[in-house]
Each structure stands twice: as C-alpha cells, then as structure tokens.
C-alpha cells in the first residue's frame, strides 16, 4: 500500500503528474500534501487580524509559488479620521517610496473623483476612511508578478466602504504599480497615520496555470 493508499501503489505522485485510480480519501490526502493536480484554484496562504495596530504584515507570501495573489479585506477601520487605506511591499524590508497609482472614487453623497500619484509612499486602495464604529472598508486586491525579479509589481483593487463623513457610502477602484523590477516577499496593509483595526485580512495564491 502506498502512502496515500491509491491503486496501483507504486507511482510517485506530484502536482501535474498524477497516476492511478484515486479514492476520495486519496484525493483529500494528496491535496493536503500539494501533490494533487487541480489547476487554478484559490489557495489560502494566511488570514490575519489586528486591533489598534500600525499595520498587518504578510511576510510569508509564497511568492515563488504564485504569480497572482488575492488579498481580501474585511472591516478595515482607522483610528485617525480621514486617513487612507494603503499597501506597502517588501523586498526584504517594507518600502515607503516610489509607488504609482490611479484610482477612481465615488461618494454616494458627494462627487466622483480621479485620484492619482506618481511618487507615493504607499499604494492607495481607499481614502477618507472614518474612525467610528460603522466607518469601515471592505474589498479585494489582486497582486501580480510579486515573485518575478525581472518584472514590476502590479495591483488592481476594488473597495467599498463608509467614509469619514457620517458613514457616507463610498467606493474606489483602480490600479497601482511599484515600477522597480525586483522580488517582493511581503505585503503590508496599513494607513499613513494612526493605527488600524481589521476584522480579517486573508491572502490567497492562485495556483500555477501554465
């Protein structure tokens, strides 16, 4: 009998190279061992929470395994009214310069606006965040090429939230880049001033697809 109990018992199993007839338990065990081929699925890397912290850092992002990452953010709140939601990337240490982004925001009780920067200290994914109980941000961010040392690191985002103006409803979508070709090994969710509270932030990898 092989380690995973499948028939026949001999062949070595690996992702992209499975042989034999599998029982449900074999598939379960091989999947947990990352040895069962199932292209394209979202794989949870880590979920984090934070209360009154300066940042939430993901420092084991498996950048050599995934070239597309997804970050979901549940109930992001700032302690200092009016601060943005931002992302910083790490290439060994977290970087606070040289980011570009271009976002469209829209307010339910105000105007829509173009927001952009070519020399930012962070990648913006929300602005005008509020600090009261119901002024919270939810949304998602896709990251691309973080582990490719020859490519720039890109992101796209879409967030929906209640802002600092009496929990006025607001949205943001857009793109960002760190126009430096190197390997990114960490993702920081933060703001520019004060602390943050986040019910949960989950980082996923999209399994290789080519």
């Amino acid at each position, binding site marked *: 009998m092989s380690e995973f109990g499948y028939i026949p018992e001999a062949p070595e199993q690996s992702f992209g190279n499975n042989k034999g007839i599998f029982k449900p338990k074999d598939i379960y065990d091989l999947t947990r061992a990352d040895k069962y081929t199932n292209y394209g699925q979202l794989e949870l890397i880590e979920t984090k929470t934070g209360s009154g912290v300066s940042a939430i850092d993901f420092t084991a992002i498996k950048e050599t395994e995934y070239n*597309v990452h997804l970050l979901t953010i549940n109930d992001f709140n700032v302690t200092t009214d009016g601060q943005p939601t931002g992302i910083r990337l790490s290439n060994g240490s977290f970087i606070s310069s040289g980011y570009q982004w271009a976002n469209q925001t829209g307010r339910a009780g105000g105007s829509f606006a173009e927001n*952009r920067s070519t020399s930012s200290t962070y990648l913006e994914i929300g602005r005008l965040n509020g600090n009261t109980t119901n002024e919270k941000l939810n949304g998602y961010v896709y990251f691309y090429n973080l582990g490719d040392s020859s490519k*720039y690191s890109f992101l796209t985002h879409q967030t929906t939230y209640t802002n600092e103006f009496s929990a006025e409803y607001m949205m943001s979508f857009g793109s960002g880049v760190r126009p430096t070709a190197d390997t990114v090994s960490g993702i920081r969710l933060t703001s520019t001033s004060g602390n943050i509270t986040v019910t949960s932030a989950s980082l996923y990898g999209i399994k290789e697809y080519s």
Partner: protein
Amino acid sequence: MATELQFIKSATCTSATSSLQVTDCFSAEYDVYKVILQVDSVTAEAGTNIRLIDSGGVDSTANYDNASLYMKSTTSFSELQGTGETSWEYAMYNEGSVGGFFVMYVYNPFDSSSFTFAQSQLASHYIASSTSTLIGRKGIFVHKVAEQITGIEATQSSSRLENATLVVYGVK
C-alpha cells in the same frame, strides 16, 4: 461544492505574434469565466484587443460595444467607449518587458440565446515622454450576437506580442 476557480485552458507565445487564441474553452460547464492576459514583454509599445471565437472562427465583424475608464498615474483620466466595433479595443496596453496584467470576467458566452457580456480591469505600464507610467482601465463589454461563443483571442494590428499567456478559468 464551494465556489472554486478551475483552470480550463491557456495559450502562450514566446516570440513576436499578433494573435493569441484559446479555442474551445467555453462550454455548458460554466456560466462565468475568468480570463487573464499576462503580457511579460512586447517588442514595441502596443495595444491589444479582444475578439471572441464562434463556430465560424474569430468574429471580426462590428458586433462589439464597450464603455471604459482609462486611468493613468500621470494625467487626467479619460473615457473610452464604442459601439459596433470589430473588437473590444485596447483591452490591454504594454511597453517593454516589465509585465502587465489584464483580467476579464466573461458571462454567458456559451448560451446561444444570450449576448456575451464581460467586465475587465487592468494594471500595466508604458513609457510616456521617457517617464514610466502606470496605466489602468476598468471597463464593461458586450458582444451583441445571441450565439454560442467557444473561444477568445487577444489580437494586435501588428506583431508585437512577444512573451504572453492567455488563460481561461471557469468560475464554479
């Protein structure tokens, strides 16, 4: 079964070409598809359009409408829209070899009684007056023919698509 992203098919180029096609990727198995165009390098600055493939091959007739917002890090945003066009134009834009991504969700392509709808978002890069510039786009798209769509093509007017991958996932 929980919601899942399932790989269906991909196509890759490693030398300059004007077209990257994924054929027979849409089926009755899924209603919603996620399409990623990853462009690692182009031989020169280039826009890439999207066309759909039906039983007659690539549809290059005037069946494509779109409405999009172009967002650059250096200048005011601009609207791009069109009706009765021969492709979904400038879905992607690139320059150099630093990469760029385009993600599109496609709805009901295989339903012969429905138009094919899509929405997309991109993050890419080009050089504007020697300045490295982020380019983003958020758009909505429709192919106004009620027919079965079986595949998708990334296409350019010139052969500048050098290293790129077009991938189709089904959304369960």
